């Protein structure tokens, strides 16, 4: 079990705004808006368990300033680039993950 040791995702103007399900190449995928920048929110179980969700900008021609530092079971630290620990974003991601497992994730749904 990993835990958050440093939040580097607290950037003014890059805050989480909303999350929604979109069709990506024929499959439902979670996207979100962070300060008006659309991000692909991949939901990796081990990160969700740690309270983190990824947010990779779809089209942003610069360094993306959101990241989180985690610590693993062996005290090793991992900086996860393009990630946020924003509770609302993580909650939306967990919900999407459940819908995906149950087969109920439908494009067009906002979470």
């Amino acid at each position, binding site marked *: 079990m*990993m835990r958050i040791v440093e939040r*580097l995702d*607290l*950037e*003014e*103007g*890059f805050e989480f705004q909303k999350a929604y399900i979109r069709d*990506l*190449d*024929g*499959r*439902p*995928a979670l996207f979100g808006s962070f*300060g*008006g*920048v659309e991000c*692909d929110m*991949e*939901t*990796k*179980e*081990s*990160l969700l368990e740690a309270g983190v969700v*990824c947010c*990779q900008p779809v089209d*942003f*021609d*610069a*360094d*993306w*300033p959101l*990241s989180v530092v985690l610590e*693993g*079971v*062996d005290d*090793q630290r*991992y*900086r*996860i*680039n*393009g*990630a946020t620990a924003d509770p609302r974003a993580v909650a939306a991601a967990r919900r999407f*993950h459940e819908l*995906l*497992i149950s*087969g109920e*994730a439908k494009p067009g749904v906002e979470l």
Partner: protein
Amino acid sequence: MSAEFRKSASVPAEKVGSRSPVSRPLSSGEWADIPVALRERAFFSAHVESARFLERTKALLEDFLNEAREEIVQPDGTGTTALKVGSRAHFVDRVRRFAIEEGVPVPESWKGSIRDITHSSRLALIFDIQTLAAQEYGSWRQGMQKDVLNEFPAYRFIREVDVVQPRPLHVQNTGVVRLKTDLPFWLTMNSPTLGGFGVPWGPWGFGSGMGVEDVDRKEAEALGLIKPGDRLEPAEKGFNDHLKASVTNLSPEIQEFLRQKLGDSVKFQDGAVWWKGDRASKRDAGVAPVPRRKPSPIDPNAFPERLDILVPVRRLGGSTGAELVRDPLTGQLFVRKEGNSPDHVREEFAADQVYRALGVNVPEARMYDDGKRPVKLARFIEGRTLGSLPPPEREAAILKLRDQFAADAWLGNWDVAGTGLDNVLVDEAGTPWRIDNGGSLRFRAQGARKTAEEWNAWPTDLWTMRDAAKFPVPGKVFGGMPIFDVSKGIRGLDGRISAAIQAAPAELQPVLGFRWEQMRQIAAKALDYQSTQFTASYSDEVTRWMMELRKSGVFDRLSTELRQGKAGDYVLNDENGVPFDHLRTQKGQKHADPSENFFLVVSEAAKTINGHHAKGDTAYNQGKLSNAAALAPELKKLSASGNPQQKAMAAHYLGVLEGIESAKGNTSSKVPFVTKFELKSTASKAQRSVISELADWMSKNGGDWSIVSQWAGDQAGSSKSNGSKALKRLLLDNLVGASESDFWDPPAAKNLAAMRKAHGERYDRSMLMFQAFVQEVLGKLQFPGNDRNARSVRILRTETNAGAVPIPVGKVGTYKRGVNESGSLFYPVFTGARTITVVPHTRITSLYFFERTPGAGGDFLLGDMENEATYIGWGLRVLNLGVLPKERVPMKIGSTRKEWEL
């Protein structure tokens, strides 16, 4: 004729004396039709019917040859003796007077011409021919005397007089040495087809200018013509025994005439005439033939036994003194070469032998060692140099050379083509011959020894010799040759490799054996890449780095096996119970990486600047900026008083801080891409991890471990990160026949472009170095689910969205996946549909066994519990196990593909 000859020769007169005077009005042409064997038995002159005249002429010649003397009365009345015939003029005078006295008829129209037997020119010609023939025959007979024959058993065919138009066969055989008893050879030299006289002695045709000289037994033995102790039998009798002349073409009238004139000593039978004493007669008489020992025949293709008999023809140029020579015994041409040193020429000879054992066209060669300096003698190949061929022919020859490039690389024959493409000759059939292999093995072409870096157990020549930029000469021939063709060439030669190694000197055999094994493995890997649809250029680079890695010693501390405590365990131990063996730095040996913290802090500061500038504001995260600024004093201190590495690192990060300060407040500016400065490990070799070694090796070879490390960090978080997508794109671009539509959520070209822009050519190089490393680990390290013989790994993957796997549960099929997906090696993670894929090694792109930060000893990807491997599943079959609890997924996997074959 010299007096010395006349005194020593007792036999010439016999030649004339033994002939039967034959008077018959035959013309010269008619006499020419008479077989040689018969003519040799007849003393004749064309159109002379007077036997008495011929008898007298013959007697005078005998007198001359015998130095017969007669009593004469001098003008003062005293008696004395004088030569009966003392000179040619004397002979002509006496015969002429006799002919006139005798009334030998001469047609009116012939008088004064060469056809006039009384004419001095005609008689002079008779004298010349008869005496010269007698002289030569005398020499031959003398040479055939048993004692003489065994003391001087051979003749050397020589030119005595330069002539305007030498006969080609005589030119070809000038200097040739053959046994006197080798009648077929000498008869060939005097063949009537060349205008010769059809006898095994001279003269060798009118105006031939040729002669013979004795060759003593020592030389003949040295030439292999006769063995010590062997005794030769005179061939004269044999020659006569074999005198069977065909008379089938002669008219019955002339046959009858010859029968009358020669009848007592011959037998006419079955269209041929046999001389008394011949085998046929003996057979007819019921006498069993006496078997005769034949002289050892000379193999016309044999190499000479000695070098000092070779006749130089011309220098062939080059730096090592190659010279074209001819063997006078056989007429064959050879290339004589001493190299720049004895060891150099011996090495070249060794290379030749190995090439030939491989079936590669190299002129046959022999080594000669006279105790002073070894000499290589190679057969001369008629052909044109590769460089002199017109382009179409040259290209065709190059293609043939490429078929056997593996042999050149194996032997490190850098100069195989030659600077002017003159080390390859192409014969009339278009077959290329490697004629100068002096740049092979431990030597350079001009004789200098290669360094340990240049010649060793690692055949990096497979790449360097195809690199036209670095090695222009072989590059002209092999440049651009795809690794797949190289690999097929290796496979093509594999069946002959044992024999080829055996053909090498003993001290070279181990290294050659090792080099070939390396090549065999590289070929297998490259062909695996081809069959799994990678481009040749990608496969070439990865295999090149594999070989360089082997050579580097990066794997010196790597174990051969990682073991599971029980099925499903993801922390694997080596035979000593050490987790992940030396792939990671072990506890107690970990050392902090000062650069890591500097990098994390300054890169965060750069990201907040660049991120906000991209949005057009300056609302930076001040905490990140102040953290970065706080590093400045420490960095300045290191810059002033640290060791050279620390100074370099400090300069690197201080430069980033300057960039941050410079960009701050100006939304149109940007902090340049921040890279991590890789500090070289100061740990001792015994403490360093394999990854530490790898990072250093990459740095030395133009790569950068931090690029790999950054990718691992990105991949750990999301396969949709920029770093992940950049590698995906690199892989996609190197899959033959693949298009974006073949993959789920394909990466954009801009992701890769961004990485290339940030890192330059180091990006591709680093990622391909890493791929080579992964392949080497898979090949060297046994672990459950890895079949090293089948070069495959079992991968478990869970699709959270079960609907993404359109394959019925329990069935095998394919489905659209991402370019470079994550899977698990030992037990499934996450929740969803379980799948199993058998993945060829070449499609595995990373393993979680490594450490992300050299020396830190930590995980490589997100965490060991994910037991992650990344792979390219494109086109690979998948077994859909359905949505199962983790515990129901088979985890006892064994290490052979059969155990988990789909």
